[in-house]
């Protein structure tokens, strides 16, 4: 029985599995718990626990995929979570086509990265913590794609942010990772906060967090157009933060401070794709607002071109790939923005595979050479055969060379953009395609071809162990094959799979198909015939120019730089965006904080101490007053009495007779008075 049949048999149990799909994210979560609590005892074996969990999830994901194929309709499960007065909140998971595809992608890439990390992270001091956090991340990502309501989505969204923070800052002894991890979390936090406001807005309007319900009420027109637009834009802001779109893209290049497998998994394939997934998941809402769609498209398109330009001048292997990722994510957003729902998702899937592959190859190269600076490499092809060929596959796929994966998905997007009628965006997309091909070729030539520029590193170079090259081969194959399901050769099977209303349960089939077919229909075959050659042409042109400059050295690199001096420096410094943020946001808030701190100590405490001091003063003054005036009076009285007493004292002569005289004199006087008054 071939492997295929065995999986098909396994598919027999899907309904039960689909019912409690929570198992898929639960496995990695369990492994995280195990690793955290049995940290020391596990030691190296932590990796095995993590990998086993991920492979388990992979198997379940495949089973779920197959199961969904057979059942044909989404399955949701979950239960009562919270009642708050009129509001009754439910929490649960839904497995639909989009979810199943994402499940597959995430688990495959995560499994590959896990296996790769065993070799790559060997000997790292915090080995267990690395794998624990990786498991937690995988669990959060899986939960994200299955979440059926915005609250759970938000929770897993931020837990992923936490894991990315921890993993970027894995080697926190060095300054760069420390800064990068904080920058990553803060920037994504800005996006998340905007997203929260969007969720609250939708919650206030619809009284629920459930995505399906919200989409349905949006479709039925319960939500006003303004509400939809604002909510969509706010949700998109969250996506911009997470998927590093302009203007919140600054954290991704710095995220390269983390270990390379992390970059491969989180900052290439899964987490950054979460933003695109969010837009896809809430597509039912976006569709009803042209403005929101346009925003997505424009920002996507612009980011694609913007990042591609910077990628052409980066000298760090991973930085090039990072900006390439930002650019490709922009591509996906552009695709979604112009209504090419399937195109966007398709590109997301293919990109995940070959970009993860490229990152892993960069890891193996750095393992061999010890640096990421491409100007210190060269001629490594001969030394690292497997890495070279897998890299080539990935690079070609990215550049969009048919029949590799990248070509098909990029072509779909170009088709969609052309169909949408936004010609400016179309040509920007084509330019991006050209630049992508150009910088990938540049990368290939500088790293693998030509004469080695650093003898020492070249001597030292060696092929990575099997545990690292294995996943490379797997991903390489996928980079080649992954494009087919969505391609014309298989009749856009993926499109139909995603299309049959599974993805947008809330949306009436008609509404959605119209948008998708519009892309195809309007352009019609003529368009397809026109777009295809342009796409291929731009890719080939990019390669030729790249090879000319870096392969054959027809044009001196320095002269090229001198020619475009201003542009070059602009690209080199990443359009000074980082510095801009530093000046506009970071430094002022720190200074404002200091002012508040000082204000608090000086003014308020001052005020309080002032009040204290004033009270002390007044009390002192009162004390003085009290002494002088009141005491004075009292003392005066006392002295007077004493003086009087002293005078009277003389009356007591001690002579008895003087007393008698006084006595009778008194008696006489009273008698006199008596007489005077009475008689």
């Amino acid at each position, binding site marked *: 029985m071939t492997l295929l049949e065995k999986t098909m048999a396994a598919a027999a149990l899907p309904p039960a599995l689909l019912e409690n799909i929570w198992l898929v994210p639960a496995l990695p979560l369990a492994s995280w718990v195990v690793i955290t609590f049995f940290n020391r005892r596990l030691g190296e074996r932590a990796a095995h626990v993590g990998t086993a969990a991920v492979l388990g999830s992979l198997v379940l994901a495949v089973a779920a995929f197959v199961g969904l194929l057979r059942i044909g309709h989404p399955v949701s499960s979950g239960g009562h979570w919270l009642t708050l007065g009129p509001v009754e909140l439910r929490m649960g998971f839904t497995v639909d086509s989009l979810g199943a595809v994402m499940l597959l992608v995430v688990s495959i890439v995560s499994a590959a990265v896990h296996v790769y990390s065993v070799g790559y992270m060997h000997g790292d001091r915090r080995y267990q913590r690395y794998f624990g956090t990786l498991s937690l991340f995988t669990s959060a990502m899986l939960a994200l794609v299955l979440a059926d309501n915005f609250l759970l989505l938000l929770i897993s969204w931020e837990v992923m942010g936490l894991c990315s923070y921890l993993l970027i800052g894995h080697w926190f002894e060095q300054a760069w990772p420390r800064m990068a991890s904080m920058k990553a979390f803060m920037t994504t936090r800005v996006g998340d906060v905007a997203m929260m406001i969007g969720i609250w807005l939708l919650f206030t309007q619809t009284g629920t967090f459930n995505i399906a319900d919200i989409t349905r009420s949006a479709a039925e027109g319960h939500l006003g157009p303004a509400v939809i637009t604002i909510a969509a834009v706010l949700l998109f802001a969250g996506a911009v933060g997470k998927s590093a779109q302009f203007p919140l893209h600054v954290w991704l290049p710095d995220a390269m401070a983390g270990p390379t497998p992390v970059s491969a998994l989180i900052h290439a394939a899964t987490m950054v794709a979460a933003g695109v997934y969010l837009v896809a998941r809430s597509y039912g809402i976006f569709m009803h607002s042209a403005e929101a769609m346009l925003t997505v498209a424009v920002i996507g398109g612009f980011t694609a071109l913007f990042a591609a330009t910077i990628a052409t001048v980066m000298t760090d292997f991973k930085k090039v790939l990072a900006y390439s990722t930002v650019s490709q994510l922009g591509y996906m957003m552009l695709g979604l923005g112009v209504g090419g729902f399937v195109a966007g998702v398709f590109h997301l899937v293919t990109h995940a595979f070959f970009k993860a592959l490229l990152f892993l190859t960069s890891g193996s190269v750095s393992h061999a050479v010890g640096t990421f600076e491409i100007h210190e490499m060269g001629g490594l092809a001969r030394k690292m055969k497997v890495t070279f060929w897998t890299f080539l596959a990935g690079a070609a796929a990215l550049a969009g060379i048919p029949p590799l994966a990248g070509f098909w998905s990029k072509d779909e997007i170009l088709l969609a953009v052309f169909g949408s009628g936004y010609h400016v965006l179309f040509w920007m997309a084509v330019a991006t395609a050209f630049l992508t091909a150009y910088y990938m070729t540049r990368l290939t030539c500088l790293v693998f071809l030509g004469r080695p520029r650093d003898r020492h590193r070249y001597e030292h170079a060696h092929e990575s162990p099997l545990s690292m090259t294995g996943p490379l081969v797997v991903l390489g194959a996928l980079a080649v094959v992954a494009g087919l399901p969505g391609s014309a050769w298989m009749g856009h099977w993926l499109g139909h799979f995603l299309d049959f209303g599974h993805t947008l349960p809330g949306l009436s089939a008609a509404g959605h198909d119209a948008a998708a077919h519009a892309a195809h229909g309007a352009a019609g075959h003529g368009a397809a015939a026109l777009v295809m050659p342009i796409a291929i042409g731009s890719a080939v042109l990019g390669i030729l120019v790249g090879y000319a400059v870096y392969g054959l050295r027809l044009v001196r690199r320095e002269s090229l730089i001198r020619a475009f001096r201003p542009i070059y420096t602009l690209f080199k410094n990443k359009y000074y965006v980082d510095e801009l943020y530093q000046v506009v946001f970071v430094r002022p808030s720190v200074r404002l904080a200091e002012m508040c701190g000082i204000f608090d100590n000086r003014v308020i405490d001052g005020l309080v101490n002032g009040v204290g001091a004033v009270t002390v003063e007044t009390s002192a003054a009162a004390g003085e007053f009290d002494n002088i005036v009141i005491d004075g009076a009292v003392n005066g009285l006392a002295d007077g009495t004493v003086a009087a007493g002293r005078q*009277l*004292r*003389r*009356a*007591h*002569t*001690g*002579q*008895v*007779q003087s007393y*008698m*005289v006084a006595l*009778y004199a008194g008696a006489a006087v009273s008698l006199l008075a008596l007489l005077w008054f009475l008689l």
Partner: protein
Amino acid sequence: MIDLHHAIVLGVLLFAVGLYGALRTTNAVRILMCIELMLNAVNLNFVSFARLAAVSGTAQAAVPGQVFAIFVMTVAAAEVAVGLAIILQIVRQRGVVHIDRINLLKG
């Protein structure tokens, strides 16, 4: 017959003589004696008024006056006893009877 006024005038005069005597002498014992005189003058008045009561009222009415006089007498007796005892002590200790020198209570 005795006239009431005369009796009372006699009492007053006796009292005056006793008072003057007490004031002018420097001998403690004499002072005591004069005080006794003053007391007798008081008794005299009591009796004369008692008599007035008896004359104007029933004989029985005179009794309270006289009873009171009796009490004045007992008090006078007690007073003399104690007075003399004190004076004897002063004489025994200080050997002086001169009233001006007995001024321990001087303020």
